[in-house]
Structures are given as C-alpha cells and as structure tokens.
C-alpha cells in the first residue's frame, strides 16, 4: 500500500507522456542542464540537505534489490585536504615514473606506453594528462568542495556491484542539482587504495571496495546550462524488420 501522506499531488495519479515536441519537464531539465561544478563556495552544506540527497541514493534500483552500497560523508576540511595531498602524492610519483607528454628521460616514455597497454582505462591519455596537471599542482582533486561523499560497493553483491553504486550516485547527483547545489564525480579517490592508513580510516576492507566519490557544495556563479554534446550513433532494429542508424 502506497503511503499517500508523503506527496498527495502525485500519489495515485497516472503520468501521461509528453506530446511530440513538448517543452522539457522538470526532471529532463535537471538532467540536460547538469554540469560538473569545479568552483565552490566555502559555505558548508547543511546536514539535512546531505541526508536528503543520500535518501535519493537509497531509493536507487539495484540488482536483485540487494541495496549493497555504503556511503561515507566527509565534511572535515582537514581530512579532505589530507586525502587530497595523498592523492596528489601518487600523481606526482606517477609523473616522475612515467610521462609521455614531457618525457625528460628516455625511460619515461616507454614506461608510459607500457602502462597504457596494461591498464588502458587508468592510463588513458585523458587521466594521464589529468595526473600530470594535478602533479604540477595546477588542479586540485576535489576542487575545495566542502563535502565529499565516498561511494563503496559490496564485493559480494549480485551482478556488477560498481554498476549498482553508480546508479545510486547518479540519483544523488541529480537530486543535488535540483536543490541548486553543485556536484562533480571524482574517481581520482582510488589512489587512496595504496595507503593502509586510509583503508583503515575509511573502512575499506572486505567486503567493501572503493569505487568513486562525489564532490558536493554550493557553486559559485550559475554553472548549470544547456551545452552541445556529441550525438552518438544508435543502431535501431525497427518493428518492420529493417535496420537503421540514427544520430
């Protein structure tokens, strides 16, 4: 039995799909206008708003309704700075060991190319460049966000645990943007796996595994807006048995 006391306006009413070419509804608007925010106010996000965002994550779909996620909220500025410093240390080390952009020594380039073959996702040119820029101290990790939400997944959960946790994260991110807050997905938290001290402090031990993190805060300026995006090719097997590619 649905609880009608929470929101009487929508409970028990059928939602009609929009007409052809109708303007965007509120949810679509939030999705299309969401931009990653990398410039935050120092103001802390109040606890009730963070709780409300986490609640949206709790109601995400998951494989087999297992709901195997764990969220860690870090609002301690000292701790965020410490985490950031340790991530930057790893970036600096990688930059010293392997660098194909500005090799410097003859070994750095082939090491970088070897790493790219072994771990093509972690050492893709884009994260590689990000590591380089972060190692130089030009960009921070969490961009001085006052709150960081760390997402951990349960290794024993059905299906793919990282998929479940990221669905929950997307729910939280969209909710945060509907409150006028800014968010940014930061997966550069994974270097903290190399530190036993952080594993102990954040409780990353079996069955939990560190997946990603979300920076959360009040944005400076108005960062949300429509921008062009690339239209990817979509293969379409039609009802009448024909095949087409749409963009």
């Amino acid at each position, binding site marked *: 039995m649905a609880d009608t006391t929470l929101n009487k306006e929508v409970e028990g009413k059928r939602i009609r799909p929009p007409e*052809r*070419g*109708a*303007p*965007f509804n509120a949810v*679509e608007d939030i999705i*299309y*206008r969401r*931009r*990653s925010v*990398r*410039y935050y106010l120092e103001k802390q996000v109040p606890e009730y708003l963070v709780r409300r965002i986490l609640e949206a994550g709790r109601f995400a779909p998951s494989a087999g309704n297992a709901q195997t996620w764990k969220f860690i909220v870090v609002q301690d500025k000292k701790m965020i700075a410490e985490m950031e410093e340790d991530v930057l240390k790893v970036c600096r080390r990688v930059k010293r060991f392997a660098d194909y*952009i*500005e*090799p410097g020594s003859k070994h750095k380039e082939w090491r970088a190319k070897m790493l790219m073959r072994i771990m093509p996702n972690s050492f*893709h*040119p*884009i994260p590689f*460049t*990000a590591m380089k*820029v972060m190692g130089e101290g*030009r*960009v921070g990790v969490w961009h001085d966000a006052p709150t960081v939400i760390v997402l951990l997944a349960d290794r024993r959960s059905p299906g793919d645990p990282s998929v479940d946790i990221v669905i929950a994260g997307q729910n939280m991110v969209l909710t945060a943007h509907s409150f006028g807050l800014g968010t940014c997905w930061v997966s550069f938290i994974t270097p903290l796996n190399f530190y036993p001290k952080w594993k102990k402090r954040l409780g990353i031990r079996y069955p939990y595994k560190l997946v990603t993190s979300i920076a959360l805060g009040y944005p*400076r*300026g*108005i*960062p*949300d*807006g*429509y*921008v*062009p*995006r*690339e*239209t*990817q*090719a979509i293969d379409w097997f039609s009802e009448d048995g024909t095949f087409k*590619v749409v*963009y």
Partner: protein
Amino acid sequence: MPEYLTWKDRRKIESFYKLGEDLNLGVVAIDQDSCSGCGLCVPVCVGRAIEMVDKKARMVTDFPLCMSCGDCVAICPENSVKLIKFFELKRSFRYLDRGKPEPPRRF
C-alpha cells in the same frame, strides 16, 4: 568579431604532443566584445585553458588542454563563450561514430 585561434593556426604550435596525430583538442570561441571580464570561466576550466588578458578572457595560446566539457559555456553570464570544436582522440584511442555536437533536442 570573435577572436580565436583557427585549427590551422593551432597545428603550428610546437608542443610535446604530436598534434593532429594523437589527439585534437577542443576549441572555444570567446567573443571579446561581449566579454565582461567577470573571470568565472578561468577557475571553472579543469584544463586551465582560459586566461584573463586585459580584463578579457581568452584561450591560452600555449597549449590549451580543452576537453570541450562546456562548463565555461554554461557559466558565462554574457553568453559570449561558444564551443566550436570537440576534442578528438586518434589512433588506438579513437572513438567510433561520434556524430555532430548538438544541444538537447525535443523529438
């Protein structure tokens, strides 16, 4: 007139990347007349590809690490930033079937 580097000009810049061989970076055009010099686009850019010169924003001439995310386009209060070229990886990292960039469409 908007002032930006054309792609042909940018290929002439000497750098450590093999431009045009490994990757082509994104390009934004900033209208110098309507730019109010608020400076919001500078810290917002992850690649630090925008700088302020004489209270006007412009793309870094040296080697702008633009990944065409559009954050500068969205944050600009004067709407003077425009995304004109998307970044593109080549060789083994080339993306397939990208299509043309378009704003959200209503079907």
